């Protein structure tokens, strides 16, 4: 289990100094084994800073990262897989050699690194590119190599900063499948993304950060539960004033009346609607992650 508790970080001389900026203002969350954790927030909200602190690339001013109940140390981090926001690969190195090299740096034997690199190249669809220099690859393929570098040593935890940005839908699926496999194997996966439908589809839990604070965290279902669900009713040609006395709003579009309401006796609403006219639609609508996100950061 990876626990991030109360991380604080400010840049350039601290919050009181001129030009200083608070990047993290007490970020806490927990990622359990086999859990995929989506990290969302506007640009500059603190996602990258948090991930860099988890990876030891940046020092927090205060707060702690714990792994398996102990403070996270250098030797633990060597077993993490990391994909930085700005991609880092040797442009002139061949794909297979690059993956092998990082595998060896993370402590694999020459043989194990070769085997793992070969497997990943096959799994991520890079077989034909294995002997090309990285600079000759398309952005999507470079991203696959970057992911292979993060996965090569069979990491205990995966920390991925925007792994899906700039990818076509097929590449997104390849990457998502690879991550889900690791996750099923018990590896906690944290990734940040602006593609909220993707986060909603893949993640068990979501954390929403805004201005260096965690404004909402929990399972997608929990976050939905916190938001009130909306009852939406569409009635054609109803008698006027049919919805008087009900909370919510009625929008009139042509001869259709659309009622959006919450916290009411839905059966009562249905009865009134059927009496008033022809009911075309009646249903409870769950907010999408995008709506939850907008609500949370507003």
């Amino acid at each position, binding site marked *: 289990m990876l626990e991030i508790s109360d991380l604080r970080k400010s840049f350039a001389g601290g919050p009181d100094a001129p030009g200083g900026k608070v990047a993290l203002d007490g970020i806490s969350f927990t990622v359990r084994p086999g859990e995929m954790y989506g990290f969302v927030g506007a640009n500059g909200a603190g996602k990258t800073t948090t991930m*860099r602190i988890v990876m030891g690339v940046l020092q927090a001013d205060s707060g702690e990262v714990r792994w398996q109940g102990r403070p996270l140390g250098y030797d633990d981090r060597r077993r993490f897989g990391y994909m930085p926001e700005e991609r*880092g690969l*040797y442009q002139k*190195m061949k794909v297979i050699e690059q993956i092998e*090299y990082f595998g060896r*740096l993370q402590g694999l034997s020459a043989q194990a690194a070769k085997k793992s690199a070969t497997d990943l190249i096959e799994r991520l669809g890079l077989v034909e590119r294995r002997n090309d220099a990285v600079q000759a690859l398309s952005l999507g393929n470079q991203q696959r190599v970057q992911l292979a570098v993060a996965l090569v040593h069979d990491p205990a935890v995966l920390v991925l900063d925007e792994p899906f940005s700039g990818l076509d839908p097929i590449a997104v699926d390849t990457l998502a499948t690879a991550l889900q496999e690791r996750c099923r194997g018990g590896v906690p996966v944290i990734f940040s993304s602006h593609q909220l439908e993707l986060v909603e589809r893949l993640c068990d839990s979501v954390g929403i950060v805004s201005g260096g604070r965690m404004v909402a965290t929990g399972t997608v279902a929990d976050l939905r539960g916190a938001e009130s669900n909306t009852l939406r009713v569409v009635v054609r040609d109803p008698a006027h004033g049919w919805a008087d006395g009900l909370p919510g709003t009625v929008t009139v579009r042509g001869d259709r009346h659309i009622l959006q309401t919450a916290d009411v006796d839905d059966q009562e609403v249905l009865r009134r609607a059927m009496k008033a006219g022809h009911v075309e639609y009646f249903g409870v609508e769950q907010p999408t992650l995008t709506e939850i996100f907008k609500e949370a950061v507003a």
Partner: protein
Amino acid sequence: MNGLMLIARREIVTQVRTKGFVIGLLVTGLLVAAVSFLPTIMGGDSYTLGTVNSQQLPLQQAAPDTEFEWRTFPDEEAAKQAVLDGDVDAVLVDDARVLTDGEIDSELGVLMQSVNREVRLGAAGVNIPPLQVQSVGADAQYEGARTGIAVVLVLVLFMLLMGQVTMVAMGVVEEKGSRIVEILLSAVRPWQLLGGKIAGLGVVGLINMVTILAVGLLATSASGLSADFPPGIAGLVAGVLVWFVLGYVFFATLSAALASLVSRQEEVNTVLTPLTMTVMLTYFVSFYITTDPTGTLATVMSFVPPFSSMVMPVRMAATEVPLWQVGVSMAAMLLAVAAVLAIGAKVYARAVLRTGARLKLTDVLRAK
């Protein structure tokens, strides 16, 4: 294999595989070989002479190192034609006149005149014993060769040092600018990354250095030039390698520390300027010293790090240096290297993850 070794190996493999390295090695090898043969080719210490109705002069006795080839011409007309065609350098006619094409080669002229005088005087019964030359300097006979070796050495040391030190800086910025360093530093410690890079590129420099020395030694012995070399050349070669390593580690560490302050390749030259100036200054001082290896400047500078890393080997090549001086100078340089390693590693570790605008060295040193 630990991180440092893996990183060093990647640097070596990456460099050695490039076309630039292979071509560079071939070109320097050929250049060194050419320089080794140059005195033999350029020497021109061989003359073709002719006679018309004359005795051959015993020039060989007077100049044993020079080759003379004699031809006999039936008459003056044939001899003139041969001179004009450039087949012969000079023709002796009737034991009295010398035909040449324009001015006579001054060395040949003096030689022919004095040998002719000697022959005539000898025929008249006068015998002059030749002057005995005696050197009072310990190794005066090797001075020319020593200066030559020193000059070549300065050039080679400077070129290799500058090349490898720039490579280190470019490598550091490549990793910092592309954020590869973030992944690397989640797997290895900063000192392993820095040490591996310096060691790897140092080995590449040594491969160059050893090639140049080996080609130089082989070619000079093939060309016969090595006969003029002072004794103890093997010791000198070993010394040069040690000094090269010391100088390289000093400058490469500084170079890595300075380069870690910037994030873009375009900024490397600017940030390296103070270092480049120091290397250049070292080079100029060393070059000047080849002309005056026993002067005060040479002696003083051969003790001051980092100048000593280039000045001392040049002094050692150009003249005899007492062993204690070499020892003291090397100890001082080792201390300087240790200090630079300590400070450089600290700067590097603090700066290499701070991407963005150029950092100030003082800020980095002051940060907690």
